[in-house]
């Protein structure tokens, strides 16, 4: 499976890192591991997937019941838990440089602001929309 070049390559990774220690590795080095070349254990990947499947089952299950106003918050909470599992483990953010987390969570913050302000704005227009609907009805022949 692994030929000689690959095994020596693994050693080279460590040697290389030693030679460039303190050079642009930041958070990864704090773990005392081989930085971003640290492979995640199989059980962690598999366990994350099992959890993701379980949460998918949960969201389908909860959708069987009409939970009224809680429908959307529950579905979105489960989806967000799943998203965090994917980002933190599958995408290695837990072991990656903090700056990559700043980037991705910063963008998600802006999405939240984007949608949030838009919904506030939409709410402001609700009375106008109601009036428009009413006028349309009243103007019907």
């Amino acid at each position, binding site marked *: 499976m692994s030929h000689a070049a690959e095994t020596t390559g693994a050693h080279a*990774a460590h040697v290389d890192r030693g030679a*460039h220690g303190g050079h642009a590795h930041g958070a990864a080095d704090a773990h005392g591991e081989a930085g*971003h*070349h640290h492979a995640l254990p199989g059980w962690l*990947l598999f366990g994350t997937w099992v959890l993701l499947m379980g949460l998918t089952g949960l969201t389908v299950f909860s959708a069987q019941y009409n939970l009224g106003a809680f429908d959307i918050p529950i579905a979105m909470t489960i989806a967000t838990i799943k998203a965090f599992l994917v980002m933190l483990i599958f995408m290695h953010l837990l072991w990656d440089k903090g700056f990559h987390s700043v980037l991705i969570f910063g963008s998600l913050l802006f*999405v939240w602001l984007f949608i949030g302000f838009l*919904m506030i704005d939409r709410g402001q227009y609700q009375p106008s929309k*109601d009036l428009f609907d009413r006028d349309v009805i009243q103007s019907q022949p």
Partner: protein
Amino acid sequence: MSHDHGHGDKPFLAHHFEDEDHQFDSGKLGIWVFLVTEILFFSGLFCAYAVYRGMHPEIFVFASKALDTKWGAINTCVLLFSSLTAAWAVRNAQLGQKKGLILNLTLTILCAFGFMAIKYVEYSHKFHVGLKPGDLYAPTEGAYPEKHQSGAKARTVALAQAGDVHSPAPPAGDAPVVESPVAQDEHGGEHVAHGGEMVPWDDPRVPVETKNRLQIFFGIYFCMTGLHGIHVLLGIVVFAWLLTRAIRGHFTPTYYGPVDFAALYWHIVDLIWIYLFPLLYLIH
């Protein structure tokens, strides 16, 4: 890959990088910035979704019936499994496991094809029953299956202008409309009783223009899942390219950036579907 090596035994280390770590870190920053633009790109569609669902929740509740939760759930599982194989491919590359890498890249590609095949089944069914986007919307009889228990209040629409199928823009289901005193029908007394009443969407008395407002949902559905599908197709191309390189033995524990970056992209595609599934398929 690089036309001017200058790094002797490292054929994929571009000359403008100091070492392999430098190259890896630069690529990684690049892919993360790209993923940020992807998220902001999709956020516009999520905004459209939020605005229209906020304005017309009854449209989303009813039209969502036409989507098959079973296929949506299966596709979610297919994508989650492909995310696992993509993450495992990165692990294989990091550990220098060539066979495992080839296997996991292949599985990821197969899952992506499976996802698109299911999407094809869903799309073709929708086109068959006339649930098309925009002005092409022309549902046939039975396009909306009785998936949910009937009589649920949420899936009703206000019958504000019963009997007038010629009205230019009949309003659909909002509380103020229901309370509106204008419940007369000048065309005949038999319809007066229905004015402002809450009736199911499939009630024959609902004007066709009001029913056609359901097309908003399919416009949003096709835009969101379509753009997501394009990303899946691009993923297939990228992973196929990675597979050819993996077979040629290009990736080593010190050079596996492309596998890592493609996997990150694939996880974002999965992540967007994680939100699309409950927002489109699981609506009450």
